[in-house]
């Protein structure tokens, strides 16, 4: 704390209390990660006995060996990449032009279209009709169904639309005078100026896709197409149900818990790797200097 002397007694207490609170939150948020990581490197026996708290007990790679020896694991991992990459790309390709169109005053019936998009945030048909809809469109058990079925997100569209609306119109006008058509105005001016907003929705998309579980479970029955999260569930169910495995539990080097933890660790790593790369686009103030206020 710099210049702490300049704070009054009350302010100091306030600042201190804040710091303690933030520290507690950080620990609370971080602990599950640490716990899962520790669990994944512990022996099945230690895990089942509930001995793991902070660090691996009876350090072993058995859980990872078990996980990685399964071709189905790698296949689901691949599927998750397909859904995440394809889904995010599809989302951006729909959300960006959509948000741009909705942000333009010259859009015919603009209020109506905006209302229509916002409407879906509060009201939707519900799960069963959605499922039936997907089924009738022949989108069950299909990569394409998962990717296109969840490509449009009203919240992301509205977020980006608001950002586009905040960009001074003179940029659009300057580009139009420079000969740009609408498409070029969007991709050569608005998109580069909106990097922070686009990075935000990209991250939202990636995380949502990466963790996507429920609909994948409902819409995909083909084991070859399921993503990692569904595979994780299947594995838990499978190991728990496996009589033979349960009976040898005391001697097995891994357990349901450690295998689950190992799969979770494997699934978290790519997100951790991607985050710093996306975060560098969260810098504000890119509009600075282009127009004189």
């Amino acid at each position: 704390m710099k210049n702490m002397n300049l704070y009054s007694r009350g302010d100091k207490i306030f600042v201190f209390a804040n710091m303690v609170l933030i520290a507690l939150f950080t620990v609370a948020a971080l602990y599950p990660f640490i716990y899962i990581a520790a669990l994944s490197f512990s022996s099945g026996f230690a895990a089942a006995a509930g001995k793991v708290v902070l660090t691996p007990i009876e350090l072993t790679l058995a859980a990872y060996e078990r996980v990685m020896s399964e071709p189905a694991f790698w296949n689901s991992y691949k599927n998750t990449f397909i859904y995440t990459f394809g889904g995010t790309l599809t989302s951006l390709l729909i959300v960006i032009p959509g948000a741009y169109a909705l942000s333009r005053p010259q859009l015919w019936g603009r209020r109506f279209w905006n209302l229509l998009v916002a409407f879906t945030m509060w009201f939707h048909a519900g799960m069963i009709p959605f499922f039936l809809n997907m089924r009738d469109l022949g989108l069950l058990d299909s990569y394409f169904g998962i990717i296109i079925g969840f490509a449009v997100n009203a919240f992301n569209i509205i977020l980006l639309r608001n950002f586009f609306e905040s960009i001074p119109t003179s940029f659009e006008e300057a580009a139009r005078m420079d000969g740009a058509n609408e498409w070029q105005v969007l991709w050569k001016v608005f998109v580069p100026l909106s990097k922070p907003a686009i990075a935000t929705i990209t991250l939202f998309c990636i995380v949502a896709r990466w963790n996507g579980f429920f609909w994948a479970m409902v819409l995909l029955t083909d084991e070859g197409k399921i993503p990692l999260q569904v595979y994780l569930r299947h594995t838990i169910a499978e190991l728990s149900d496996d009589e033979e495995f349960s009976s040898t539990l005391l001697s097995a080097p891994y357990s349901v818990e450690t295998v689950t933890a190992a799969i979770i660790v494997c699934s978290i790593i790519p997100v951790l790797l991607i985050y710093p790369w996306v975060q560098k686009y969260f810098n504000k103030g890119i509009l600075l200097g282009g127009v004189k206020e």
Partner: protein
Amino acid sequence: MSGVFLEGIVKRYGSLSVVHGIDLEIKPREFVVLVGPSGCGKSTTLRMIAGLEEISDGTLRIGDRVMNRVAPKDRDVAMVFQNYALYPHLNVADNMAFGLRIRKTPKDEIAKSIEEVAQILGLTEYLERRPADLSGGQRQRVAMGRAIVRHPDVFLFDEPLSNLDAKLRTQMRAEIKRLHKRLGVTSIYVTHDQVEAMTLADRIVVMADGRIEQIGTPMDLFNNPVNTFVAGFIGSPPMNQFSAVIEEGQGGLVARANGTTIPLPALEELRGAAGRDVVVGIRPEHVHLGAEEGTSAIPIELDLIETLGSEALLHTHVGNETFVAKVETHGEIGHLQGVNALHVKPERVKLFDRETGRAIGRAA
């Protein structure tokens, strides 16, 4: 280079009409300035020429093409915006190249154009910088460079200097004038600043309330304003105006106001005008110190002296109306303190109809 022709140009927003029918012929290579108070429709008119606003009524031609329904990019005009609107994510060179790249100009040609324009504008050292790292004057230059590299048929400027400080504004004004001399591109320039208009324009278009009040060369407008609005708008300080009644004097007609008698020029239009209500207009520059035979001696009480250096402004009043005289100081103002009379030559006195505000007669 092309001329620009406006015939009965109207702009309506819904039922609200903001430009009421503008007729204007701009010759190829001409530098025309639209000037008028804020909100009078200058920008709207310019933006209709640019294609950024739809034209509600009338015909716009550039060269011999009717442009009413042509997209901005196909009009071959370039515009410099008041806020510059430089692309913040691109450096100076890329900002200038943007339009050329979109038009698929060959790479070596782009490089050559940019180098050349950067040279003209003194931007060579700054080509790699982002707009955020430039001063106001440099940004202004980049905005102009972006317009120039395209070699457009017509330049449009919307108050390009109004964000600069006074000194830089004067400097850039001169630069714009030099550029126009050098490039000879038809230019339409919008400003609310009459000094900018006077210094830059081949011809000035004075606008008020969505209408054209007068079109003419700077000296035209200065010497022969067609009405009290133009008289008050052009010139700094503005022309003194006060109400008077025309009477028969000893040597001819005079205008009488609050005990001041001002001999009038012998104008054809004033024959039999005795008793007419008029507004008298006298430019501060045309007022001289002291009383003199055959001129209008105006007895005065000094309210205030503003010293400008080589000149001073004497503030006084005729009746309730302030009256300002601009006089030479010759380096000192002591002799101005005791001034109790001013005079003006009859041929310098302007008369306007009090009812309509229109000028009566035209002096040489």
